């Protein structure tokens, strides 16, 4: 049962023999394997899992990271393995369709070959196909669904609520949902979700005053006679990483003790399978799995790690499997359990890539998407510029999309330097693609995307960078917030991930000159979390820049020089520091 990698290899071997490992010409010629999505049912209880779709209703490109460094106990361990080393670790054939799905390798060519990923109409077709072979199965969503696109912003998440209902989501846990505001969250939970039987669960959200549960901590479902408990875990640091004023009456946190309490209660009430639907992020989930006992599987998200095989984590009473299902609608996790006599006798898991060209669009979902987009089509389709280079965001230190945003901010605002948040959402564009307002909003659409221009001393700049860096590289996962390093424009620096807070950021320079701790610099930024912050929306700032330049040359990434990171670290590849 625990030999998950061997099972995965067997699946791959079988698929390979059956022609799943295509070369690009076959796909270009439309000779797609008819069996890529053939997944025979196994066992008697099935849970399907999506996470972090970030409101991407349409098919998109999404480049996986080439930098995802692990620290402390996570050095070189899943999910901190990228590129060739990931392929080797999971035994995925280079240049295959799966290699494209799970890595950044040869991204431009492979993306052209295999086409876009995700899209709710295509996802719907896959979900229905998988569920047809698995009667009684449930579809779970780990959240970050109501944010990430122009339409989700303008409809206050309603487009995604409608799409989730149509997709057949049964249970959901939240994070960015809270940035729609507490009132709006409750309106959906007690309105559309209640009406359509979607459970919105979070054991770690309580009221500030009495510590009462705000949402159902867990739900018990009967699947083919087997009692399954699903416990919800919201992103523990929502009021810190996102504006606290949006959820002023609620307290979050990891709350291991609460988790253990609900696991025990669910078991006492007869749960034969206990799973956690989590927005902790993978490193936090792995630590939680080592501390909380009695959980069979944690279905995770937040850190956007596309992990092909669950990670088994030992704890005092057994083993908990930890999964992470990627982002942007690119993957569907399918977990099948064989439960006999009240016990799990076996399981099979596959993180299935959603290739839009290989899955026909579901007609009803397609119509729904057309309907929600219609009032905004002209705005979404405005062509702002054309990109000559690949634009992407994901990676620990910088992405070309972020660099473009910072270049725009510094130019438009006349700033010395720029900060752009280390968000992990945001789609990719291929060289030659149009940068439409829709694509710009994919990178920037939040309910607090104000642009700012602040005078900061050199000392403050370092403090800010140290603070954010500790949220990424603290060796204790419970202090990690799951975002990447703040992107820095204009200022070059060196970074040592393995140092303590206060010593990681070194050699800060502007135009080659060391930063003066007491001198003030003009720093542009966006998405401030403080209450009362205002400013022109960042998309307007960047749009203004794009309309002027018309053609965007490949942005020159301002990447920190890394100290202490070994060449052999599997969490980094093809990295080029800017100094």
């Amino acid at each position, binding site marked *: 049962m625990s030999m998950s990698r061997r099972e995965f290899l067997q699946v791959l071997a079988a698929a390979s023999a059956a022609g799943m490992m295509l070369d690009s010409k076959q796909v270009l010629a439309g000779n797609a394997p008819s069996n890529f999505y053939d997944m025979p049912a196994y066992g008697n209880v099935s849970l399907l899992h999506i996470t972090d779709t970030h409101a991407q209703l349409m098919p998109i490109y999404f480049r996986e990271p080439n930098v995802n460094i692990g620290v402390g106990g996570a050095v070189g361990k899943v999910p901190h393995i990228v590129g060739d080393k990931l392929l080797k670790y999971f035994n995925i054939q280079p240049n295959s369709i799966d290699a494209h799905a799970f890595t950044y390798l040869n991204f431009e060519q492979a993306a052209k070959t295999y086409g876009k990923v995700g899209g709710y109409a295509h996802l719907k077709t896959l979900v229905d196909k998988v569920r047809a072979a698995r009667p009684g199965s449930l579809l779970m969503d780990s959240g970050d669904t109501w944010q990430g696109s122009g339409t989700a912003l303008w409809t206050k998440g309603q487009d995604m609520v409608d799409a989730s209902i149509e997709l057949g989501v049964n249970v959901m846990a939240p994070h960015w949902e809270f940035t729609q505001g507490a009132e709006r969250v409750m309106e959906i939970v007690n309105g559309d979700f209640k009406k359509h039987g979607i459970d919105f669960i979070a054991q770690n959200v309580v009221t500030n005053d009495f510590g009462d549960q705000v949402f159902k901590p867990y739900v018990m479902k009967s699947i083919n006679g087997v009692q399954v408990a699903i416990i919800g875990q919201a992103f523990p*640091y929502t009021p810190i*990483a996102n504006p606290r004023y949006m959820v002023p009456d609620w307290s979050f946190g990891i709350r291991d003790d609460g988790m253990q309490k609900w696991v025990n209660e669910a078991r006492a009430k007869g749960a034969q399978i206990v799973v956690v639907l989590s927005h902790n992020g993978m490193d936090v989930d792995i630590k939680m799995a080592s501390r909380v006992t009695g959980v069979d599987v944690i279905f995770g998200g937040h850190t956007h790690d596309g992990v092909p095989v669950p990670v088994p984590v030992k704890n005092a009473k057994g083993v908990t499997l930890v999964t992470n299902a990627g982002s942007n609608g690119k993957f569907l996790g399918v977990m099948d359990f064989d439960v006999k006599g009240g016990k799990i006798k076996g399981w099979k898991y596959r993180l299935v890539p959603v290739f839009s060209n290989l899955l026909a669009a579901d007609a009803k979902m397609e119509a729904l998407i057309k309907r929600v987009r219609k009032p905004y089509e002209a705005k979404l389709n405005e062509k702002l510029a054309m990109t000559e280079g690949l634009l992407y965001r994901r990676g620990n230190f910088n992405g070309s999309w972020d660099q473009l945003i910072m270049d725009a901010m510094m130019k438009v605002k006349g700033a010395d330097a720029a900060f752009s948040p280390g*968000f992990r959402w945001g789609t990719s564009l291929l060289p030659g693609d149009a940068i439409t307002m829709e694509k710009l909003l994919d990178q920037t659409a939040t309910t607090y995307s104000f642009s700012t221009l602040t005078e900061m001393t050199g000392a403050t700049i370092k403090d800010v960078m140290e603070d*954010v860096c500790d*949220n990424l590289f603290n060796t*204790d996962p419970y202090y990690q917030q799951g975002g990447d390093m703040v992107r820095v424009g204009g200022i070059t620096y060196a970074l040592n991930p393995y140092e303590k807070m206060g010593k990681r950021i070194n050699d800060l320079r502007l135009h080659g000159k060391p930063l003066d701790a007491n001198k003030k610099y003009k720093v542009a930024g966006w*998405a401030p979390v403080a209450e009362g912050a205002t400013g022109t929306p960042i998309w307007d700032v960047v749009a203004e820049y794009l309309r002027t330049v018309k053609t965007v040359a490949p942005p020159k990434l301002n990447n920190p020089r890394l100290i202490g990171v070994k060449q052999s670290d599997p969490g980094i590849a093809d990295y080029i520091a800017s100094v």
Partner: protein
Amino acid sequence: MNHQRRTVLKGVGSAAAVGVAVAAGLLKPTAAFAGDRSAFDAKGLDAAMKAIKATGAAESKDITVKAPDIAENGAVVPVEITSNIAGTESIAILAEKNASPMVGEFNLSNGAQGFISTRIKLANTSNVRAVVKAGSKMYTATKEVKVTIGGCGG
């Protein structure tokens, strides 16, 4: 029921609300203290520990300091201290990195459970230290709480 409780509380007058604030630990215990203030004026951890005669207190695993790993709001950080040491007479809380670390001392009458729950203010990332007096001996335990500028979450 919970909803009613909240409504009732919202409906009561301001005088009663102060009582609630004290009960919920929202007010600094200093406000309620009539006794020796020197510990509250002490600058730095060493001076504060000295003022409550806890210098050299023994680290104890029988004391649990429960506080968030990262504070949601440094101005009101929930802290719970449980002392399973027999004969616990008092529990003091110190925020090590605050300019004046002493937050409060709670005297427990005979047989009272060694448990307090309150909210404290943290200026920076800091250890929250509990000091327990039992049978004329001093015991201590800590928990680090991080105070961060926030933002930039995935």
